[in-house]
């Protein structure tokens, strides 16, 4: 049933309907409304049986999830930004131990300077941590991805991050359908852990592995992640046949078939990009959008296929790798066939809006050869501010 509701509240309801037995979380903007919603549901008994652990830090939150998951409970947490980094040590631990924890990342910039607004720096900084990373383009998809995330995590024994743009999605009031309890129960069977800390059948989990076997363990982990691509597509298809709407999967192409230029992006910017493409098409410009829903594992084949024969791709990066360049753009460059010219741009850092006008101008600049090729281009940079600061720095003499 469609309800006018805040994105965070819808996600909290969706998570609750997945019946996690343990939720451990620590508040940080813009994730707060999600965990507040869940703590209400546990307090009122609407989500039961469930233990909500109010831990002392994000490190404690993910650590508690690790323990809970190893003890055989369906386990959930949520965080953002600095909180995700505070968990950093435990992230590869959860994936290395193969624990099917689901976490929402309400995407937010990383400080300094401290900034609570949206970009993708947090999740992308942890792209190699061994978690699946699914990016929601809308609040409806965020809800749907949580159901799929639990299904995938438990099917594959890997942890999954569901990334949704902070504030832009988490705090937006929209009409959202949260599937009813029976439907969720039918889609998501009860958790049957592969192994747990069973006194009747004691296992040692987390042994020390030396040079003799470590490579093999990591190889198998990487192989399993690659194989997950098939499951992600499969679960999305199962979701569609159950709930009658398209959500999740690997990539989301929009009007790319005969496109001369394609915007590649993740998250809530996809809706804006689709609007821009519609408008450009009306003007006779063959533009399209390629949305990346599954960022890890990287859907190499799907991206390559989608971009095959497309002359120009513009990657909208909402995070940068300082000292190197783009992050999403690097993946796209390595994937696209030589026939596709990849333009790599930075937009929308730290909550700067990715607007229709901005994207439209970007497409036109690329088509008219106004964008320098090769170098990473900061589309929405205020050149005056930057130039002033560079000049001032040059004047400072070190005593």
């Amino acid at each position, binding site marked *: 049933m469609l309800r006018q509701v805040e994105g965070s509240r819808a996600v909290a309801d969706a998570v609750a309907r997945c019946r996690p*037995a*343990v939720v*451990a979380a620590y508040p940080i903007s813009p994730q707060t409304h999600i965990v507040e919603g869940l703590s209400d549901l546990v307090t009122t008994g609407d989500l039961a*049986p*469930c*233990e909500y*652990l*109010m*831990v*002392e*830090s994000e*490190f*404690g*939150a993910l*650590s*508690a*999830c*690790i*323990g*809970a*998951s*190893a*003890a*055989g*409970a369906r*386990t959930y947490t949520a965080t953002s930004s600095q909180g995700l980094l505070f968990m950093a*040590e*435990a992230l590869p*631990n959860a994936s290395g*131990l193969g624990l099917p924890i689901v976490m929402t990342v309400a995407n937010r910039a990383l400080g300094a300077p401290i900034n609570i607004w949206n970009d993708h720096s947090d999740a992308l900084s942890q792209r190699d941590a061994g978690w699946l990373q699914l990016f929601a383009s809308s609040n409806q998809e965020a809800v749907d991805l949580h159901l799929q995330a639990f299904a995938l995590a438990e099917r594959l024994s890997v942890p999954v991050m569901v990334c949704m743009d902070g504030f832009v999605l988490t705090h937006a009031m929209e009409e959202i359908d949260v599937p009813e309890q029976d439907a969720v129960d039918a889609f998501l069977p009860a958790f049957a852990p592969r192994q747990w*800390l*069973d*006194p009747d059948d*004691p*296992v*040692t*989990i*987390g*042994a*020390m*592995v*030396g040079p003799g*076997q470590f490579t093999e363990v990591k190889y198998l982990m990487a192989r399993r992640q690659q194989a997950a691509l098939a499951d992600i597509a499969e679960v999305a298809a199962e979701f569609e046949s159950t709930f009658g709407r398209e959500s999740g999967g690997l990539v989301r192409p929009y009007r790319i078939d005969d496109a001369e230029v394609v915007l590649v992006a993740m998250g809530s910017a996809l809706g804006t990009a689709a609007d821009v493409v519609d408008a450009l098409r009306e003007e006779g410009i063959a533009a399209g959008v390629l949305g990346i829903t599954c960022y890890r594992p990287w859907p190499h084949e799907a991206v390559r296929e989608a971009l095959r024969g497309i002359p120009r791709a513009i990657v909208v990066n909402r995070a940068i790798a300082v000292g190197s360049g783009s992050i999403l753009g690097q993946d796209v460059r390595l994937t696209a066939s030589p026939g596709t010219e990849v333009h790599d741009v930075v937009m929308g850092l730290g909550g700067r809006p990715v607007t229709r006008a901005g994207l439209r101008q970007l497409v036109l600049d690329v088509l008219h050869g106004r964008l320098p090729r090769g170098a990473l281009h900061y589309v929405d940079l205020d050149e005056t501010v930057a130039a002033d600061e560079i000049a001032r720095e040059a004047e400072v003499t070190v005593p």
Partner: protein
Amino acid sequence: MTTTPLYQIGTFAAGNRLLDPDQRSVQSGQDRTNAITSGHRACRGCGEALAARVVLDAASRAAGGRMVTVNATGCLEVFSTPYPESAWQVPWLHSLFGNAAAVASGVSAALRATGRDDIRVVAQAGDGGTVDIGLGCVSGMFERNDDVLFVCYDNQGYMNTGVQRSGATPPAASTATTRPVGTSVGNAFGTGKSLPLIAMAHEIPYVATATVADLHDLEAKVTKAMSMHGARYLHVLVPCPLGWGSASSETIRIARLATRCGLFPVFEAEHGSVTHVTPIRQPVPVTDYLEPQSRFAHLFSGAGRPDVVAALQDRADRNIARYGLLTEETP
């Protein structure tokens, strides 16, 4: 407390078959779990390995075999689980260095939520994993009163990484990062960090200290802790022959000297108040404890450092006064 009748005068030997059955040690029983079996890689005379077996066997008996353990990174984890081998006969989970308490809270919450809370949770960590890097998680677990028994095996340093100083290293001890070189006397005289007192400040149901010198007492405290619910903390002094520079045959004697000189008070507390103190029967000066350990050798070589020894004696005397270690009554 009922003092254990002595079989051989002057010893507190565990496994005394002449005692009443209910006073016999878990270790002497044929039904002991042998939670950590032989064949692991600990050094000879390792106090931590001994304490871990005694603690977990007692906890396992108290839990009727329904127990899981969580372990922080440190010597205990490394010497017991060189993949593909494992010395653990009980379900055992290692995650990280600083998160054992939070992992254990998660296990406990999961068992409660899934209706299996007959299974008890014991977390174990070294002093580094407890008083330093793990303190935030430990304090959170205490404050929420999660149903976890947390055991700290205190060997007063980061032994696993090669004997560096920890927040539990005593003043004047030589470690790999507090060498008595130049004008240094070894580890600095800081304010100290007593985790038992910090635990008591959380007013958790049970806090106790123990050593490997009195295994019967250690078992009794574990058994008592396991009869309770909520957050419980046990701090066990475990000499480390490698890090302390003591003979591997001296582990028990040195642990006993640590208590007899007053540097390591043995007591119990419930809900923030001390309920029992183990009195010192035959007090000794701190030198008796310090001299057999090469980590304190610089205090005795050449002209020696009587001033530093006096400062250590002062710490011991303060403990004796604070806990009433020389009086038979408990405060």
